[in-house]
């Protein structure tokens, strides 16, 4: 099968790419929500991200991708203690999925044929330490959403059913995409996504031509195309790895904290999660830029993604949240030109 489209070859959509890279650097950001039109490269970006991410080390054959043999759950009966390298898991959660497939359930096959009670892990187990991708997240059935909320919050999947009592870690980055015209997302789920991005089809003809050009080259001249772009993806991967190492040492000056708080107060964002996410994202961006301190430019760059979905919202208000964030940014930090940092 063909390699996925390279991440660095995606034309435009800078905010989406930035948000995805930030979650790769700082998994505690706990997710990206990508809302926008069809055919704007949402799925392409997620699949490209999977190929871009640095590999993880896990115990061979462990169903929950444990990093150490001691962390393997008992029910999995993992015999091996060997560590193997594998790509970061990116698991698709299809819309019509049943609860059993998501959480895992009694292994019916073994129960009926061998009369044994065994646990068959679900998608949440497979997504541990990786990404869980939900396309059309706003059409997901409510009971699956409830279940995801619970697991995303606790980082642990608990299965109590059919005589089974199983728990296993399920820490993953949620990536959701959808088309807002088809329905809205429950605020509770909205809040679980650290960052949210709005993508639109590029209106610039040159950009559209460039998209077709690269896509065409990818389809018909794959070798040459990958030869051009694979090194760039490799460079990006190195940068992510460097940023991960640098992240703990990125300093947050007093002024940065104050800026975060002021911005959130001015916007009237609900709760403190907004400030935390804003700070985390800004730190991750600073690390990615190779700087040792969070500056206003970082806050300015991540504020729309981190805050736009957290504004208290009048359901009948038509003014976009993006516009409100941008306006408040201008009010708090001053116009963009003067804030040259």
């Amino acid at each position, binding site marked *: *099968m*063909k390699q996925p489209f390279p991440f660095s070859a995606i034309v435009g959509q800078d905010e989406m790419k930035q948000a995805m890279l930030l979650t790769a650097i700082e998994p505690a950001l706990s997710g990206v929500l990508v809302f926008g*039109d*069809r*055919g*704007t*490269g949402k*799925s392409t970006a997620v*699949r490209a991200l999977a190929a871009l991410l640095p590999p993880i080390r896990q115990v061979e054959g462990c169903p929950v991708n444990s990093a150490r043999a001691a962390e393997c759950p008992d029910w999995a009966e993992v015999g091996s203690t060997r560590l193997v390298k594998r790509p970061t898991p990116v698991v*698709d959660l*299809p*819309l*019509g*999925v*049943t*609860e*059993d497939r998501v959480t895992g359930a*009694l292994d*019916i*096959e073994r*129960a*009926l*044929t061998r*009369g044994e009670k065994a646990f068959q892990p679900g998608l949440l187990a497979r997504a541990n330490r990786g990404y869980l991708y939900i*396309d*059309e997240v*706003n*059409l997901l*059935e409510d*009971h699956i959403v409830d279940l995801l909320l619970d697991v995303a919050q606790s980082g642990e999947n608990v299965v109590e059913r*059919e005589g089974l009592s199983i728990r296993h870690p399920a820490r993953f980055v949620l990536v959701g995409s959808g*088309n*807002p*015209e*088809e*329905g*809205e997302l429950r605020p509770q789920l909205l809040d679980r996504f650290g960052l949210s991005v709005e993508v*639109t*089809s*590029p*209106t610039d*003809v*040159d950009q*559209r*031509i460039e*998209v*077709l*050009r690269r*896509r*065409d080259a990818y*389809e018909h001249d794959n070798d040459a195309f990958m030869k051009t772009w694979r090194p760039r993806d490799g460079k990006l991967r190195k940068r992510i790895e460097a940023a991960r190492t640098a992240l703990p040492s990125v300093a947050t000056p007093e002024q940065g904290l104050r800026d975060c708080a002021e911005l959130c107060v001015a916007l009237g964002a609900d709760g403190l999660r907004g400030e935390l996410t804003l700070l985390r994202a800004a730190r991750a961006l600073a690390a990615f830029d190779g700087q040792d301190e969070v500056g206003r430019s970082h806050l300015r760059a991540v504020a729309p993604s981190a805050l736009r979905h957290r504004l208290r919202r009048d*359901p*009948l208000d*038509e003014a976009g949240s993006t516009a409100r964030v941008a306006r408040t940014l201008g009010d708090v930090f001053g116009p963009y030109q003067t804030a040259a940092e």
Partner: protein
Amino acid sequence: MSGTETWNRAALALRLLAADPSGLGGLWLRARPGPARDAVVAALDRLPVPPRRIHPAIASDALSGGMDLAATLSAGTPVLRDGLLAPGATILLTSAERCGSGLAATLGQWLDRGAGSLILLDEAADGDECPPPALTDRIGLFLSLDDVALRDTGPLDMHLPASLPTVTLASEQRDALAVTAASLGIASLRPPGFAAAAARTAATLDGRSQVQDADLRLACELTFAHRAQATPAPEDDTSAPPEESHEQDGETQRPEIPDDMLLDAVRAALPPDLLSRLAEARTRRAGTAGGSGAAHRGNRRGRPLPPRPGTLDGRARIDLVATLRAAAPWQPMRRAADRTDRRLHIRSADIRVKQYEETSDRVLIFCVDASGSAAMARLAEAKGAVEILLSEAYARRDHVALIGFRGNRADVLLPPTRSLVQAKRHLAGLPGGGGTPLAAGLQAGCELARTSRGRGLTPSLALLTDGRANIALDGSANRGTAEADAGRMARLLRTEGIAGLVIDTGRRPARSLEELARAFDAPYLALPRADARGLSGAVSAVLG
């Protein structure tokens, strides 16, 4: 476009599909049952990879593969079955307009992996039905056989030349496709890729190694025409978006193929009433995907019902205890017959699945009078009233739909959706003026209520009007007939058992409207006396 032309184009499209199934993603065939469709479907069976037929209610394990339970139980060892969604497969989805979002997502992800093609057989009776946009966006070709008569049809040649040359698509030609898509208002970035694949394949089938203008034209007709969201500017206009920035650097990079030519090709293939249908189409597409509501009797949540015999199709959950109970009495007999030392003998007939009952989602259909008399009086206030009801609906997480009636017709402005923002936008853009076709409005409301019920939603209808009906159902301006028609429709709504609410938006309460409300068996509320609290109280009473 005549039927023969359509037929010839269909023949070409089928050959393209045969030559490059995965590059084109597949074919969306809109046709009612008939000889033309039969001929095309028969030709599809002659594709190099004959399609596997699936239907919208197919079980997920049949698609993705899994354990064959019946075989496993009788063999005593796990028997795995391959799914239909293998790489390189061609899938034919019948009744595609009834495809649910879950199946659409599965098929979409499979298409995204880029190794198969999907054929949608769309038998939509009218414009209200449409295959899920998640699929149509990922499928290159579109054919509509609506105007093909039997005499237009001819033999379909699916034969491919033994060797196909490799084709080059000049960069100007490729850019021209991107520009054309942009000027047709096609937002998605997938179609230009499909057009490029179609043009290449058209050339290769002709035995040429260079894409020519005719190939580009055909590609645009087949992949762009049905997606056009804006009518291209007329010919005399400079329709291609200018690219001055390129022309400054010496050599002109402006596409050599005049984009006008491609636009002309698409324009010729555009349905004549495109403009009038554009607005509808947009809301329709948005609505159909999210519209299907929960069924009354589900297998996932709600109040548990007794388990029933069933098959494990990946959707229902097994009731293990009930299954064992059903199998228990047979154990000695089966053990004796089987003579193996298996402890447990279960046949597929023993399988019991869980079943739940739940109340379905509600949809509140607003039928808003936007006629001249209402506009003169208090359209703005009516809009305000609808907004109160909308926020009420939002709090209850109901679906809302909007019908506006004025002049001599009623339009479904917004099919059932949960998107409040959209409802608000449509309401704000509702123009006023013209006669009051009250009966037509009620008829549209009744039809929408029926279709919503078919999707598992429970409909209620809120009518906002000043009650001065003056346009009859047949469009004639006759106050007497108009009122009689409206009364008839109200009684129909009552017999359909649709809950309702009538809000009088006139300056003075209209007696005729009160009678109408009685015929409809719905509470009547005169807006002059109804404040916000009264309104939401009335809605609560109606919706329970």
